[in-house]
């Protein structure tokens, strides 16, 4: 009933608006059209001017007053550089934008129609045209120069000492794999070996895989170069670490990398932002399906000591899943037991017992 009344009301209002439209139309027809057109012209010119002034005030006010709100604190070495470039570009853009914006709307106001005035017959002006082609070209050249230098540094090869961490995206979560402390090398993987337990598809014929461990948090040491090796299991995903200015797609069938140095620990960031609950986060920025928006991965930046302790405290994947020892070739089992931190006494053949111990 209520919606019927509302519907009726809406129809009534529309009919009234339509009637007003018809009547003013007829009145204008009687009065003649020219007068009306001229007055409308002045109104539009005035509105353009008002729009220009109000929108510029709104733009500068919001950008200044809410600066803290939209600028993310930066916590990586290259992030400082790209942010710098961002702000250089911003200054250039805002200056150019403001000048053109003001000039354009000022022209619309100043040169609004006046009976009897004749527009100037300006066809072109080569000097002016060359000037405003060259100026943007030079500015672009500077931006390109700065940008490419930064880009080459960011995408250049990582140093040998870089800590390698593997990130794997899947619908709809992330996993991290760290090389074990004994060999510092990630083991090989193959997507055909993936199953419900072996989520990484670890190739256990490779001895480097024995001490690799899985983490559901990304732990990073502060001040050390980290090389992310990124891959995806099912569809495209994208690693996005907003505070570190890091973004790289995770592509099934293709390994991608990103190297960076975190400069602030989580604790330092908490102190700096004054937010005791601050946490770094990682998000997915490539559309990947229903749960795209929920692929949050916690990130922790520790000082080196804490980080090393954390690494030492992690359990090798093989230790957590001793069933998979049988995938290890006979001649490597001994090594696997040692690297994974399993007691050799409990060797292969006693999986059940081991499993109960480690799954406790």
């Amino acid at each position: 009933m209520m919606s019927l009344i509302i519907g009726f009301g809406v129809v009534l209002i529309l009919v009234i608006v339509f009637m007003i439209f018809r009547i003013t139309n007829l009145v204008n027809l009687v009065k003649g059209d020219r007068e009306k057109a001229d007055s409308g012209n002045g109104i539009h010119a005035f509105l353009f001017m008002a729009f220009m002034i109000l929108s510029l005030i709104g733009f500068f006010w919001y950008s200044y007053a809410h600066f803290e709100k939209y600028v993310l604190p930066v916590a990586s070495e290259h992030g400082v550089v790209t942010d710098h470039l961002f702000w250089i570009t911003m200054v250039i853009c805002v200056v150019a934008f403001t000048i053109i914006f003001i000039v354009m709307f000022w022209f619309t106001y100043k040169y609004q129609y006046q009976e009897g005035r004749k527009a100037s017959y300006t066809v072109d002006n080569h000097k002016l045209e060359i000037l405003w082609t060259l100026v943007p070209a030079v500015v672009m050249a500077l931006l390109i120069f700065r940008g490419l230098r930064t880009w080459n540094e960011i995408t250049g090869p990582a140093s040998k000492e870089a800590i390698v961490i593997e990130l794997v995206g899947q619908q709809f979560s992330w996993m991290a794999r760290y090389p074990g402390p004994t060999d510092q090398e990630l083991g090989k993987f193959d997507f055909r070996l993936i199953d419900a337990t072996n989520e990484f598809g670890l190739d256990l014929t490779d001895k480097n895989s024995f001490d690799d461990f899985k983490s559901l948090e990304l732990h990073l040491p502060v001040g050390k170069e980290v090389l992310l090796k990124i891959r995806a299991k099912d569809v495209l995903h994208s690693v996005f670490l907003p505070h570190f200015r890091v973004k790289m797609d995770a592509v099934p069938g293709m390994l991608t990398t990103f190297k960076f140095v975190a400069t602030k620990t989580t604790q330092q960031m908490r102190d700096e932002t004054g937010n005791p609950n601050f946490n770094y986060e990682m998000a997915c920025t490539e559309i990947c399906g229903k749960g795209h928006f929920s692929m949050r991965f916690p990130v922790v930046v520790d000082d080196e000591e804490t980080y090393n302790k954390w690494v030492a405290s992690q359990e090798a994947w093989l230790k957590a899943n001793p069933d998979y020892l049988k995938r290890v070739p006979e001649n490597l089992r001994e090594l696997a037991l040692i690297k994974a931190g399993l007691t050799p006494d409990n060797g292969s053949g006693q999986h059940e017992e081991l499993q109960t111990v480690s799954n406790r």
Partner: protein
Amino acid sequence: MATADIKVHTDAHHDDHEHDHEHHGNFWTNYIFCQDHKVIAKQFLITGMAWALIGGILSVIFRLQLGFPEASLEWLRPILGGWITPEGKIDSEFYLALVTMHGTIMVFFVLTAGLSGTFSNFLIPLQVGARDMASGFMNMLSYWFFFLSSAFMFTSLFISTGPAGGGWTVYPPLSALPQAIQGSGLGMTLWLISMALFIVSTLLGGINYITTIINMRTQGMSFTRMPLTIWAFFFTAVIGLLSFPVLFGAALLLIFDRSFGTSFFLSDIYIAGEALPHVGGSPILFQHLFWFLGHPEVYIVLLPALGITSEIIATNSRKPIFGYKAMVGSMLFIAILSFVVWAHHMFVTGMNPFLGSIFTLLTLIIAVPSAVKIFNYVTTLWQGNLRFTSGMLFSIGLVSFFLTGGITGLFLGNSAVDIQLHDTYFVVAHFHLVMGSASFFGMIAGIYHWFPKFFGRMMDERLGGIHFWLTFVGVYMVFFPMHYIGIAGFPRRYYSWTNFEAFSSFTDLNMLVSIAAIITLGAQFIFLFNFFYSIWRGRLAPPNPWGATTLEWTTPRHPQHGNWPGEIPAVYRWAYDYSKPGAKEDYIPQTIPYSETPESNLPHENELVKLEMGNSGAIVAGDKKH
């Protein structure tokens, strides 16, 4: 022959001439399977408007979710049915389908077919002085392939698994695997069929536009005398002809991957508990193929709008367009460069970083001709005598959007800065302003400006003004705040941001954006009313309501098939003789020879007078042969 004509003509000239092109026939041949370019243009226009409405409504639905995440959308259940979850929210998978369909519809169906299809078809023969397109039959096919394509896409909105949901860029593997998202089942199949048909339509149209412009210009209409609209349509058609086939190829390979087990784009995939047999493909390959069309597509959408506004701004400033040659030159430069910048969409996809450097360089170069165009528009306004007709208002709006949205391209085109901004709301703000809103304004401006030629009546200027201000301010309120949201790192295509601490702010701005989006959509109904009311009840249009110089205004109020009842007029001058010093009126139509305007001729034009005398003799002789 006139006796066979069932229509009553009020046009007195009409019966005076021989009717080579008189149209007979019934409703079906006149309005449905018609080969007349003006009718086909109207068909594209109406279909495009219908799509725009659908695309706009879809965007408002997902803006409701983003702006009012707590609100119950139970009231949408009668329309959306199972896509509303039991809690009264939009299903998060359907949200992606909405985003995907909004993008696809707006980019292809509204701003490619609706814009190019309408105005290229309508204006090319009228402005170059041709009876019709080079091939009326192909032109008709072009519309009906588009219609068929529309039918497939429209159908996909109603199937139980939902329409395609992998984003309008349909990146595989998401778009190739129904296990990954429901929309990649039948919805994606329909999407691909629809796009294949769409490409056929675009190619049929494009070949026609190019042929007509090159071969069918009237006497005296040299390339340098063509209005900028025609130049823009010409470049657009060339770009489309060269780039759409690549998308066709990509779509075909994707069909193979989806249905026939090939591995062009798929490799190393473990999904839904099994490892798929695909090995050796590359998802990046698809992205290269897609953006090889996708980036030129931006200019396919934008150039016609720029052409339309060049014409409208010059006419209503009562001034020649500033730097005609620079305008043509920058469009040509943009058209060429548009083919070599595609990979700036892919800086962080894992493509070789060296490619990133090259594409940064090429991308930022394209800013130069774009800047030149803006400067030329602004200088055209300088010392003009501006009449703010609705078309002019929307044209100025376009320049404003082109500036606001274009300048942020300097951030995104620079690979190092793009790392942070890629796939955030900053990108959404950028392309919606520079390509979406600017082109949409170009389309609306064109409708207001050429409505008198379309339907022989005028649209209401006051409603046009209200429509403009609500839409202009509304669009800025929708897209400007997104820059802040994007700088803060908010990723696009997110159903909700509450999972993240970093993205938990800006509920206020998101609400503002959504409210502005609703108002902006609402304002379009003023336009729709104005449009349909004026078709039947608008003021009768005078022959040349805007005092424009171009050829279309020399046709009768309702041009019949063949456009000009008599001979096709010859052209003697460029299209921008507005406010020429010494001239009696503030415009001189292209059909007036220099010999008739000795008072306003420039020195070099006086020399052309002699040539003209020779030429006009030739025209008469030439015409007698027919």
